[in-house]
């Protein structure tokens, strides 16, 4: 039984992650502990969640630049609503997810109806969401609600005293949900079909408009969830938060083995992409002498590596066909 070539990028991602972890472990044996693993999940939870949404967008051949702003908007929205009204956080969450999902759906609609590049449409969305959060407040608004304390402190104590926090669990769940949606539903099949080519997808019976709206709505929803998680993580809402997160998320998706031109990839890969990026940061923190800018450089190198790898794979298949 040979390995299916479509798995190569995913295996490369997982392989790099394991190799990196082994390197870390040899230098700092403590890194192989559930504490470090738990922190890795917690610290990167918001990124992982938003990257799941981004994976679907990229699989369809699109891009969503608005998610960083939407996360910031979510934090501000929650903080201001909790401060100004007596609503329960859960009610606020539902409202928020409604807003961000509708926002994403609207962007998808504009992309489809106007036939303009997703890049520029979601750029407008980015400005709009950031502007909207500024309009709610320009300050960092702390969230003080007993329910929030509860969420923040909720964790499952893993063997080895590592804490798998609630937000870490939410991220893992998001990955699972994303994987099911992408790989086990007809909607997911349509997403891949769009990424393979819109004209052919249409011929095979994909409802392009509805699927496009659905994809960006899903990304908006995930950005909303990510915003909730981020507000739990930081305990506040700040309109200047998570600037540039969309690009980190895109990088994670690519390092996760998804083809940036769309049509090939795995949601699970994105999880490993996020974890690899988190691991590099953790390593640099552990090392202490290395400077944080190495994170960016290493991530850049990984990006280049994966883009070249995929170009090679695409060429190889093209030659055979």
């Amino acid at each position, binding site marked *: 039984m040979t390995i299916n070539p479509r798995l190569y990028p995913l295996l490369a991602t997982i392989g790099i992650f394991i190799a990196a972890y082994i390197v870390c472990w040899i230098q700092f044996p403590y890194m192989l502990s559930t504490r470090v693993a738990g922190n890795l999940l917690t610290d990167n939870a918001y990124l992982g969640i938003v990257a799941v949404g981004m994976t679907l967008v990229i699989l369809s051949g699109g891009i969503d630049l608005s998610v960083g702003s939407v996360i910031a908007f979510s934090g501000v929205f929650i903080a201001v609503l909790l401060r100004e009204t007596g609503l329960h956080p859960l009610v606020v969450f539902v409202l928020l997810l409604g807003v961000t999902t509708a926002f994403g759906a609207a962007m998808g609609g504009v992309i489809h109806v106007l036939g303009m590049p997703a890049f520029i449409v979601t750029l407008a969305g980015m400005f709009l969401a950031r502007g909207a959060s500024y309009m709610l407040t320009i300050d960092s608004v702390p969230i003080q609600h007993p329910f929030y304390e509860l969420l923040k402190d909720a964790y499952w104590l893993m063997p080895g005293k590592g804490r798998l926090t609630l937000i870490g669990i939410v991220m893992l769940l998001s990955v699972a949900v994303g994987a099911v949606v992408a790989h*086990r*539903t*007809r909607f997911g099949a349509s997403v891949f079909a769009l990424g393979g080519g819109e004209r052919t997808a249409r011929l095979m019976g994909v409802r392009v408009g509805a699927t496009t709206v659905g994809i960006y709505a899903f990304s908006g929803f995930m950005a909303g969830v990510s915003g909730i998680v981020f507000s739990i993580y930081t305990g506040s809402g700040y309109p200047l938060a998570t600037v540039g997160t969309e690009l980190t998320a895109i990088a994670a998706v690519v390092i996760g083995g998804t083809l940036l031109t769309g049509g090939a990839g795995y949601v699970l890969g994105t999880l490993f992409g996020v974890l690899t990026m988190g691991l590099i940061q953790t390593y640099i923190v552990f090392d202490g002498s290395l400077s944080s800018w190495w994170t960016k450089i290493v991530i850049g190198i990984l990006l280049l590596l994966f883009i070249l790898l995929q170009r090679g794979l695409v060429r190889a298949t093209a030659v055979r066909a």
Partner: protein
Amino acid sequence: MLLSIRNLSKSFPGTLALDDVDFELRAGEVHALLGENGAGKSTLIKCLTGAYRRDSGEIRLEGNPISPASTSEAQELGIGTVYQEVNLLPNLTVAQNLTFGREPRRFGLVDGRAQRKMAQEMLSGYNLDIDVGRDLGAYSVAIQQIVAIARAVALSGKVLILDEPTASLDAAEVRMLFDVVRDLRDQGLGIVFVSHFLDQVFEICDRLTVLRNGRKITTEVVADLDRLTLIEHMLGRELEEATEHEAAQKDPHSRSRPELLRFEGIGRDGVVEPFDMTVHKGEVIGLAGLLGSGRTESAELMFGVRASQGGRTRDADGPVAHGNPREAIQSGFGFAPEDRKTDGIVADLSVRENIILALQAHRGWTRPIPRSEQNRLADEYIAKLDIRTSDAEKAIGDLSGGNQQKVVLARWLAMNPRFLILDEPTRGIDVGAHAEILRLIHEMTGQGMAVLVISSEFDELIAVADRVIVLRDRRHTGELSGSDVTSDAIVREIARDDADPRTQRGAA
């Protein structure tokens, strides 16, 4: 009768694409649909598959009138189509492609195991031993083609339309595909086979229908038909008179003129077999052959659009480089490609800019052509070629096809090349412009330029060419010159069954 079409008409602004066409397809037959470019084949198929709405006429499937409004509706009715460029998704697995839109589900989720099983069942009987869990793109075009057929048959199951399915297959793959087609025919499907490979039509088809200029010419039983009659049906040439008249103008001694270029062993695997060609000063060479015979590909090899494997080219002064378009232009070549829209015009640029583009690229960016010179060139060619445009600053995309073609011609004339290749120079052009372009070709050669004209209009070749090289199945098979250049002779040359290398009269 499985499928019957009566009095089908379809027009587009300016053209009547289908004019009162009848067509019948029986269950259990393979029926070829033949015709040259613009004959109406693809319009007919698009009306059948719901991509176009017909203007009038009726389509009956098993006796019931149908009018599909979309490809998926046609599919549900029982009409499936497989195109040359496989319309499946190479980035999905074979199983996903086969079951797309009707994936087996459990608890609302796609059941991967059942999906693969379903795919395997769909492929059983096609004699394919492939892993349905792999990406479709990992397999050869032939296998993708068969997967596409399997999907179309499973979805539709009555009528199967194969639109140029063999265009990019090799001989073994064609055999594999034909085995599948025969099996399906024996199972009682009605199969419409569109191809320009006549050998294949004779091999696999039971009956055939020829379309020309949007009209149905004839429907015949293949076994009762010889190749020559068929080609005459397709090309519709009954113009001996005209031919003789034109032939009188030819220069039978074009080959005794001074030699300009000598191509030797130019070719590429799977594109065109290596060929030799000698070009003389001031002569017009025609390339004739059916669609897909390698005409355009020969031109592309000569202009460096595709790289030749081996071979060499010389002129009186030594070797001539044409490994890429820029080298070819340096060597004094020009090439007006067949597809004006994608390869010829730069739509948003003005007529003036399109005319000077090649000349400017040749001079390099540091030596811009002075604006006054640009205007002079533009005005000169607009007048000389009678380009109908309100002014030279109009975007070329807003011009009619004939005028666009003239601008592309002007672009090359401004370069004053010694060897100009024109691929279908009169395609989609009205009659007046047509005659003018032929006149222009004569004018150009009067000044010593050699011109290679590719055309599926034999009248045109006869009118313009001093000699005609005939291609068949990606091979230069023969040559006619002087008074031998007649429609009849070209047709016979194309039809000749055994293209024996010994009869290859190559270039001098």
